Each structure stands twice: as structure tokens, then as C-alpha cells.
């Protein structure tokens, strides 16, 4: 039997979507279910629904891919987080900036069991700042109580990784081989405080990630399908379940990344602007060579500044449920969200929304028609729709970087808010199954990895080769087929104030998943 089907699930704040895709990339089944409080219920319902649509074909499913906002929600809600002992290697450097500086007090108190800044770390050219203070680390571990994990951040560890690795070994020797140790070199590029923040958050998310990965494994087992399971990460690639439990912070931002990749796949556009219009927001992103364009700016997650790679997303407060002020016609910022079917004018409620404005302008929404409205309300709705369109037009133009020929792919339930002609973009594409683009993106993802290296300009080629090798290894670790993994992006940045020309290279590798899922069925 041909076991060529992939099942993609996307757990959003409101809905859990699922799709099944065949080897040729066609959508065979899809569903939208409400996200449950325990997450598992929604996943179970969504997977059961698409498998039911498949009928006897269900045993052809060999892979299940999950994208989830669970990690973000846990940080924002300060829920189920593990306690972390944070070790910084680099003293005396950076001692003016203790770990977790600038975190919201409540979150820092919840997460941090203790921190130490010990001798170690490297300068930009690889020279050690100080010898590694092994005794200092042992003393810190002995005097710190009640932690579940250790986070280690060494100055310039992205280009000089060996010290962090030595510390991981030391911690396991001292506390036992199963101690959870997380290294900053695996999490983010240079930018010490932001990378350390991301590493500590990552360590704190271990149990949260475990519970979701276990939920997925349980549901897959309950359904009796023989499939390998993967998680979607924020750059539009996949990682294995083990890897996701180790690097849960990388699942943050996977929703927009999946939506962009899914929209590109469904529309057939390798280069495009994608707009995903939901109930509360419109998220816009750019797809380049089939992957989301990444942001280079630090981002705040739950009030914490972090620097790991995230898709370059522009979020507007414009969605189908966005309210229109009945006195001024002002758009938002409120939204009736999933209560739209009770509160919007179109559904017999009393709250004017952008959906009502679109319906007034002729959009067909759920086959319903508006009640007759006072002229002043109609006028205000018109103004509001024009305002929303202007905001969308500005955002599209901004993301296009001046290219007016990129197609605009419209997905999501509120896609009717986007008009057919927007200056600043080419053709407007509204692909079939666009309402479940997130789940499609999860189902079609490749496995990927990224690595950074700082080197002298005349060793540039060696540095690119070294970073490429590390990125490929990470991609394979994440589940990529070793024979088909390739480098998809190389970014070089010059470094100033050095005695010889120096460059930072950042390499991303990705490849199709190893066909492990077929081993039993092939």
C-alpha cells in the first residue's frame, strides 16, 4: 500500500484545524474544530474528523504534523512553567547585566530558581575571556534548590560552542545523566541578553511541550494509525517530537509560518505576499522561495525580549469580527471574536462589525443578508470598510518593498474583507481550502536547522562551510532525509572594529522528511 498521506493539525487560540494531504500535495480532507481548554480534546476531535472523511484510506497516513500556540499561551498565562537555574559563562564580562534583567517581575519569580555569572566565555575572535570556572558552577548547582532544568549561556557561544558543551557535560556529571540542560547556541544568534532570555524561556517550557507532544502521541495511538509525529517550528520547517520537547521555544511563531507556507502551496506561488484574515486580526507575511521571510528585529514574548528567528509578520487589528464604532465609524480595536454569529448585525445582533460592512458592500457571507439599516449606520459602515482597506493596502505596499508584481494570496475566514484590486500587489489569489492554510502549511513542511558562525573575511568560505555543516546536522536531527537536505539561505553581516575584516554568516538548511513513516507499510 502507498503510505503517502500527511495529516497536518494547527492548534490556534480559537480553532483547531486539520487537513490530510496526499503525495501530490492535494487536500483530501479538512476540518475546523473548536480549540479545547486542555488542547488534547480539540486535537482529538480534529484528527478524528479528517480520518473519518478518509474512510478506508486512513491507513495511508504515515506522518502527523502539529503546529501549536501552546508555548506562547503558557508564557503569556504564566501557566505550568518549569523552574530554571541559569548559568552565564563570560564573567567578568557582562556582569553589569545580570540574567533576566528587564523581565516582568511575576514571570521572573516564577521561572528563575537562581542564577550565576561565572568565569568563561569568548571574545569575538574566539579568545577566551576567562578560564571556565568549573568549581563556581558546581558550587552554584549545590546551593540552588528546586529547579527542573539548567539553562547555559556563554558569551559568543554561537561561534565558539565548545564551552557550553563542556558545561552540559559537567552539569550531568554533577547532578546525574538525565538532568535537563539547555544551551543558548541551540536557540538563537548573537545578542547575549535576548538569547539568554530565549534559552531560559525554552528551559521553562519543557513540561508544557511534553504535555502537548504526549497528547499528540496519545491521540495518534488511540486512532490506531501508524504514523511518525512532528512539530512545526517558526521558520516553516518541522522538527521531530523529541526535538520539539528539547526546543519548545521554536514552536512559537509556527502559526503564521504555517499559514504563509500553506497559502503559498495552495496557490502555487513561490514568491508572494500572504494575508491571513481571521476574526480579530489580519496577519501579513511574505513568502520567498516557498519559505517565510524572517524578521531581524528582537521580539517580545510575554514581556520578555528574545532574538530567535521569527517570520516577519505585520499584524493589523482588522478581522471579520472587528467592531465598528456606531457613532464615529472608527475601526476596532475591539472584536466580537467567535461571538460574531450572535452579535453582528448580519446575524441579528446589535454590534456593527467589518463583516457587516463587507456585506453592505456586496460580499456574500454565509448566504445571509443584512437587515435594513438607518442611512447614518450605512454611511459609517462604508467609511469603516474604506479605512480597513486603506490599512490593508498600506501593509501590502510596505511588505512588497516596492515590487508591485508579487501576487497577493488571501486566506482565512475573513478573506472577503480584502478587495480584488489592491495597488502595490499583483494578482489577488484566493485558493481553495484557504480557510485551513495553517494546517496545510504544517502538513507540507520540510525539516530544517540553522547555524551561525563569526569568522575572518578571508576564512569566509571555511566559515560558510562550517555553518552549513552544522545547519545540515541540525536539520537531520530535526528529521530531514540526509540524502535530500540542502542549504536554503545564507546571510552574511560585516563586523566592525576588528583588526581584520570579519563577517558573521548565518546558514539555514532544510529537506524533505526522511521516509521513516513508510518503514512498516512499504
Amino acid at each position, binding site marked *: 500500500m502507498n503510505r503517502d498521506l500527511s495529516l497536518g493539525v494547527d492548534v490556534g487560540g480559537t480553532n483547531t484545524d486539520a487537513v490530510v494531504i496526499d503525495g501530490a500535495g492535494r487536500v483530501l480532507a479538512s476540518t475546523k474544530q473548536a480549540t479545547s481548554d486542555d488542547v488534547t480534546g480539540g486535537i482529538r476531535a480534529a484528527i478524528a474528523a479528517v480520518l473519518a472523511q478518509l474512510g478506508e484510506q486512513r491507513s495511508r497516513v504515515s506522518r502527523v504534523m502539529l503546529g501549536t500556540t501552546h508555548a506562547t499561551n503558557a508564557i503569556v498565562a504564566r501557566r505550568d512553567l518549569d523552574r530554571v537555574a541559569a548559568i552565564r559563562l563570560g564573567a567578568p564580562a*557582562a556582569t553589569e547585566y545580570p540574567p533576566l534583567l*528587564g523581565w516582568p517581575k511575576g514571570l521572573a519569580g516564577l521561572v528563575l530558581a537562581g542564577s550565576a555569572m561565572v568565569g568563561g566565555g569568548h571574545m569575538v575572535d574566539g579568545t577566551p575571556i576567562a578560564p571556565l570556572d568549573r568549581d563556581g558552577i558546581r558550587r552554584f548547582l549545590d546551593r540552588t534548590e528546586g529547579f527542573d532544568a539548567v539553562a547555559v549561556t556563554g558569551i559568543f557561544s554561537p561561534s565558539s560552542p565548545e564551552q557550553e558543551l563542556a558545561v552540559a557535560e559537567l552539569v550531568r556529571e554533577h547532578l546525574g545523566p538525565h538532568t535537563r540542560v539547555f544551551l543558548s547556541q541551540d536557540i538563537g544568534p548573537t545578542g547575549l541578553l535576548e538569547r539568554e532570555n530565549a534559552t531560559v524561556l525554552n528551559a521553562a517550557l519543557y513540561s508544557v511541550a511534553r504535555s502537548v507532544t504526549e497528547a499528540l502521541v496519545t491521540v495518534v495511538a488511540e486512532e490506531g494509525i501508524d504514523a511518525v509525529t512532528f512539530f512545526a517550528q517558526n521558520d516553516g520547517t518541522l522538527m521531530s517530537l523529541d526535538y520539539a520537547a528539547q526546543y519548545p521555544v521554536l514552536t512559537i511563531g509556527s502559526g503564521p509560518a504555517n499559514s504563509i507556507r500553506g497559502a503559498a502551496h495552495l496557490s502555487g506561488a513561490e514568491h508572494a505576499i500572504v494575508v491571513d484574515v481571521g476574526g480579530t486580526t489580519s496577519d501579513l507575511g511574505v513568502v520567498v522561495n516557498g519559505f517565510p521571510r524572517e524578521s531581524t528585529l528582537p521580539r517580545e514574548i510575554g514581556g520578555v525580549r528574545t532574538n530567535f528567528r521569527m517570520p516577519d509578520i505585520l499584524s493589523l487589528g482588522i478581522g471579520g469580527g472587528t467592531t465598528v464604532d456606531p457613532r464615529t465609524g472608527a475601526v476596532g480595536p475591539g472584536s466580537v471574536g467567535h461571538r460574531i454569529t450572535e452579535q453582528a448585525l448580519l446575524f441579528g445582533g446589535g454590534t456593527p462589525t467589518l463583516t457587516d460592512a463587507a456585506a453592505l458592500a456586496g460580499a456574500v457571507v454565509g448566504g445571509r443578508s443584512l437587515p435594513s439599516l438607518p442611512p447614518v449606520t450605512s454611511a459609517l459602515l462604508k467609511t469603516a470598510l474604506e479605512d480597513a482597506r486603506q490599512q490593508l493596502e498600506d501593509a501590502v505596499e510596505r511588505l512588497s518593498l516596492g515590487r508591485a508584481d508579487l501576487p497577493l494570496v488571501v486566506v482565512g475566514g475573513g478573506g472577503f474583507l480584502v478587495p480584488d484590486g489592491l495597488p502595490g500587489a499583483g494578482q489577488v489569489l484566493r485558493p481553495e481550502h484557504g480557510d485551513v492554510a495553517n494546517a496545510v502549511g504544517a502538513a507540507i513542511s520540510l525539516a530544517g536547522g540553522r547555524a551561525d558562525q563569526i569568522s575572518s573575511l578571508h576564512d569566509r568560505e571555511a566559515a560558510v562551510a562550517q555553518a552549513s555543516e552544522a545547519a545540515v546536522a541540525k536539520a537531520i536531527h530535526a528529521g530531514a532525509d540526509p540524502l535530500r537536505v540542502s542549504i536554503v539561505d545564507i546571510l552574511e553581516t560585516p563586523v566592525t*572594529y576588528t583588526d581584520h575584516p570579519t563577517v558573521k554568516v548565518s546558514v539555514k538548511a532544510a529537506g524533505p522528511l526522511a521516509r521513516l513513516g513508510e518503514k512498516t507499510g512499504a
Partner: protein
Amino acid sequence: MPPTSPASAGAQVAAADVAALAAGAAIFGTGGGGAVHTAQVVAEQVLLENGPVPLVTVDELGPDDLVMLMSGIGAPTVGIEMLSSRHQIDLLVREAQAAAGRPITALMAAEIGGSNGVSPVGWASRLGLKLLDADGMGRAFPSAAMVSMNVAGLPCDFAILSDVVGNVSVIKTIDLHWLERHARALTVASGSICLGAHYPMTAETARGAVVEGTVSAAIRVGHALLSASEPVAAVAAELGGSILLTGKITDLDRRTEDGFARGSVTIAGTGADRGRLQRLELQNENLVVLEDGEVLASVPDNVTVIDAETGQAITTEMLRYGQRVAVLAWACDPIWRTPRGLELAGPQAFGYDLTYVPFKETTR
């Protein structure tokens, strides 16, 4: 005219002022000066622990006071990773005292623009010193020679550099161009990042040689930015400057030349400014604004690109195609308009073959 009303007697900088100081320092960065966020979080923390810092004017300095100029120096790419040590500033001030042969009693920011305008308040708090309500530029400039003391002809007796591992160097050079050269070489040897103290000054030598009132001005501008309902207009009013144009970035051309990030940006007017087009020339900082071939503002006058909605400063490296921005300009301190000031920091000092026309608020 620029803001010159200095702090009133008994003035202090408290932890609650640091966010405003940082937002204001970003405006005074005129596109450069480095990101203020990291400096802001550490200064807030130190002021919470040690209490507010006395902010004094030159007139309030006594005969026993000695002021040191403080700054970070080095590569931003390295600066985000190899942050300063807790003892680096202590060492710096201890060596400066030894070199001067008397106690340091007050610190001053070398430049009020960017992170270098924010960090000294934390250092003063940690060391229990006063902060002078002044700086050496009134903005941000890329070179150590572009300081008001140099314009005033004040010699720099010595400079001290300290690095993260504890190396300290005392540098005595014949002028500021040699200081820049030596300081750069030492900074490279230290791993591309250092802290520096230079220009020891007394009340007598500081008078007329520093740009006064800039710390309190940055705080005022920052408060206006963070609290006003119309932040763009509030910032312009607080600075006594004008908005040259409100529009969007339609072209961005960047190149690296001689270690500097050069470039030009085209901004197309929107709303009331529709149909107008301005070009902004950059080199780390914003240097010249042109419209229809006419110079509207240029160095040493100040030009900052701010977000059209929030009023927050956008550094030259953060400029992006499509951004909605306002171009804000205001007059420099009079010291920069002297022949010596223009020689050091006028358009020609940055390689532009154009005659300096003083910016007035009525220009447009």
C-alpha cells in the same frame, strides 16, 4: 533654538525618568548613537537599588568638583554580545582619579544621543557621583574629535580605556585625531568593545565648552513623546523644531564605505504633504535633507526620522521601505555654528560639497 534651559537646583534623575531619558536620547541620536534598550533596563535597575542621581548644572559645580566624560566605544555587532563588566566603570574612574591626582565628583555623557546618553546615569548612581546636565555633542556624532570641548579649544589631558577583562590604559595623545586612532587600536585589542573616560574638566574649563541642559532636555522630550496624545507634534514643540515632511519611505539605498554605513533614503509626502519628495543622506547618523535640490537641513543641525504615529526615533539601520515616518529637524547648539564647529562637523567634514545654511524653524 535648541533646548538650553538646564536642570533646576535640586534636580534628580530617578528610576521612573529612565524610560523618558532613553526615548529622548534616541531622538537626540539623530539616527545613530546605538539602541537604547539594553542601557535603559540596566540603568533602571541600578537607580531602583541606589536611588536617584543628583543632576547638576555647570553653575552648581564648586571649585573642588572634577567632571569626567564617559562613553562606550566599539562595534555594535559585538556590543550586543560582550556587555560591560560591573567593575569596568569602577576601574575607569579609579584610574582617572589617579591620573588627575584628585577625586572625580561628577560624570558627563560624551554624547546625549543613543545608549551613550543613557548609560552614564546608571554609572553615576552606582558610584554615588553627580551627573552633569550636559554632554559633549548635544546629539550623536561618529568621531571622538566631534565634541564641543574640541570646538572650544579645550585640550584633552588624558583618556582612560577599560575593557571587560580588567585591562586599563591611560592614553595621552597630542590631539583628538590621535586619540581616536589609539583608542580604536586598543578597542580592537580588547575584543572590539571598551568603555572610555576622557576630558577631565573643572567648573572653570567646562563653562562654555560643554552643551548644557541636554540630560533634562532628553527627559522632557521623552516624557512628551511617551505621554502626549499627538507625540509627533509634542516632540517637535519640545525641541523647538519642525516637521519637514510626513510621508512614507519609497526608496532605500545603503552601502558600506570606509567602515561607515552610508546611504540615502527617499521619503514621499502623504496627506497634506502629498506630491512632495525629500531625500535624506546618511552616514551612521542623518546628515542632510534635500527637497527639489535645496538643502532643508544639514549637519551640524539635527535631523531625526520618527515614526509618524508613535513619535519614536528610528535609527538609520532600522529604516525600512514603506515605513510611515516624519522628518524632524531642529537647530544645533550655537557652538557648532562657529567656524571651528563647522570645520569639525559641518557638511564638508562629512564629504558633502555644500555650504552650510543654518536651520530655522520657519524653513519649509
